[in-house]
């Protein structure tokens, strides 16, 4: 007991004395620990938020493209549709006998970096996320008028909007300097509760609203000399000619494959219907390779951190032979010499882990808003999860075991040298 404390005391003092090399070693281990934990944390939460993004929708229909691309723009608001689907095709889907509900989606505009989604009130009735949860209003109500808008929780919070505020929608998807539909401001009628999904970052308006602000636009620019005021717009027909995608709920999930085939074989225009679960899986496996690659890189960083540590301990071995003889002289056993080196490795790894966790939280606190707005992923500041503790435990064991190599060599030297001081 007393000698265990002695070994600990010596290990600590010895590292303190070599604070530059020890500090660099700790830093290297710390960075690797941060990377491994960071990858794990992003992975866990990505998987969770992924599975929770959409539920209760049986089919997603869009213009023909890749299923992952369709999923990305319709559900995650990432990327753009290359083509729209016509209003008539949409009506064909609505009229199908096996369809229970549809939610049309019209994308393409933005408000200060947040996507604007044109849809119908059915969105608030049928859209589900997580474990089949419906959207709830934290204030206000769905849009009723052409120029009403409902904001996602994050949009309202980040931009400080309240019910009854007026906002202007920009044409296209830029954050600033874009042409704005400033002649037709929208009134906030409702704000949604936080969902942890891309809905939080969406500005919702009616399809008619999208149509109204584009009356005097063709393609990417305003038609010269043509100007339709908001009041004039109300009196015009605001049925859109096309939409971007449709979420479909079926009467029976069993009919999903039949409906899917029917829509995909539609003659009028090339459509693509996907099963959200399958597409999510596909997207996840795409990310999975990236995640595995990242995990492997992180692992190699850990290994190189340990190599640095072992190198440092091995390099010190020769200059410490005198120290070992002195320790033997005052009563240390060869096993004390062994444990001194193992303890040093253990301490370096422990401090590396502590630093790594600190760096992780620092990193999360800095990157959290960026990751959230860029990738729609919320990485929480939570205390380490069970999986992360396991990783930390594994790193601690690996570091301690790595320390056994220099420790064993020191032990052997100490047994051979005894009290003879060799330099």
């Amino acid at each position, binding site marked *: 007991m*007393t*000698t265990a*404390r*002695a070994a600990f*005391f*010596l290990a600590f*003092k*010895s590292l*303190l*004395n*070599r604070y530059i090399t020890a500090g660099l070693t700790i830093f290297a281990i710390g960075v690797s620990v941060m990377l491994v934990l960071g990858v794990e944390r992003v992975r866990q939460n990505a998987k969770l938020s992924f599975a929770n993004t959409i539920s209760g929708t049986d089919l997603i229909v869009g213009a023909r493209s890749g299923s992952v691309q369709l999923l990305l723009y319709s559900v995650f608001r990432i990327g753009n549709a290359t083509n729209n689907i016509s209003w008539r095709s949409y009506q064909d889907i609505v009229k199908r006998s096996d369809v229970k509900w549809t939610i049309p989606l019209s994308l393409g505009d933005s408000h200060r970096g947040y996507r604007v989604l044109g849809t119908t009130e059915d969105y608030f009735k049928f859209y589900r996320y997580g474990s089949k949860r419906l959207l709830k209003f934290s204030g206000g109500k769905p849009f009723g008028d052409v120029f009403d808008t409902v904001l996602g929780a994050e949009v309202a919070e980040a931009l400080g909007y309240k019910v009854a505020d007026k906002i202007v929608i920009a044409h296209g998807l830029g954050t600033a300097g874009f042409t704005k539909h400033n002649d037709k401001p929208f009134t906030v009628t409702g704000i949604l509760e936080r969902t942890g999904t891309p809905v939080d970052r969406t500005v919702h308006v009616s399809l008619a609203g999208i149509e109204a602000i584009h009356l005097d636009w063709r393609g990417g620019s305003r038609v010269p000399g043509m100007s339709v005021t908001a009041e004039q717009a109300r009196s015009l027909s605001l049925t859109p000619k096309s939409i971007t995608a449709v979420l479909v709920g079926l009467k029976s999930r069993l009919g999903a494959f039949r409906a899917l085939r029917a829509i995909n074989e539609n003659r009028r225009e090339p459509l693509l219907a996907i099963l959200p679960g399958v597409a999510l899986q596909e997207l996840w496996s795409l990310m999975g390779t990236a995640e595995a690659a990242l995990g492997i890189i992180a692992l190699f960083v850990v290994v190189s951190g340990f190599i640095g540590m072992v190198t440092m301990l091995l390099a010190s071995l020769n200059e410490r032979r*005198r*120290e070992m*003889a*002195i*320790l*033997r*002289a*005052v*009563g*240390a*056993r*060869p*096993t*004390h010499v062994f444990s001194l080196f193992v303890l040093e490795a253990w301490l370096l790894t422990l401090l590396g882990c502590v630093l790594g966790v600190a760096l992780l939280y620092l990193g999360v606190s800095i990157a959290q808003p960026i990751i959230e707005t860029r990738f729609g992923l919320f990485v929480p500041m939570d205390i380490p999860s069970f999986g992360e503790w396991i990783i930390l435990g594994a790193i601690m064991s690996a570091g301690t075991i790595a320390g056994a190599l220099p420790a064993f060599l020191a032990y052997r030297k100490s047994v051979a040298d*005894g*009290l*003879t*001081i060799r330099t």
Partner: protein
Amino acid sequence: MIELSNVRFRWRASDPLLIDIAKLSVGNGERVFLEGPSGSGKSTLLNLLGGVMVPEDGTVSIDGADLTALRQGVRDTFRADRIGLIFQMFNLIPYLDLVDNVVLPCKFSTRRARIAREKSGSVEDEARRLLRNIEIDPDMLGDRPVATLSAGQQQRVAVARSLIGSPQLIIADEPTSALDQNVRQSFMSLLFKEVADVGATLLFVSHDASLAVDFDRRLIMSEINESGAK
């Protein structure tokens, strides 16, 4: 205090015998000077007396205990408890401060820690007392890295360390060879005074025969060692 009989030792099985001592005995409180040329096995003898190495033959008894009959771990504890060692030079652990260096044996020996505490209240205070006795001011030099102390100061710190917790046997292996004439004299008188204070037995190894005069007895390696080593 020390009883050797028929002790044979070599470092490697292929070497000729380095140590072959039929009989050597040192009494309690005796101060013995051991001299011999370089390579004659003086330091090797320390390894045997400290129980770090065991002879292939014979018995090594310290204070009545036969070291050759004990397990390695017990011998290590025995050394921690009973023997204070002083090396030729660089006796100090560079990453420990002055007081921690002196206290070191108490970390491996509960017995010496207890005795030190009985004397001064705490092992650190006992270390400071011993340092002052050998004319090192721990308050003035305490914050300096021990490597910046002069050779003479370092050797005196080593004396304080060998004495803490009052071990009965002090073994010094050429402690003065790095010191100049004046420092050597004052070092010797301090060493004698402190060893006498504790009432310990002193085995002093050196090839500087001029130091032998103040000792109770003078041993010459070639006379006690029957091996052919130089």
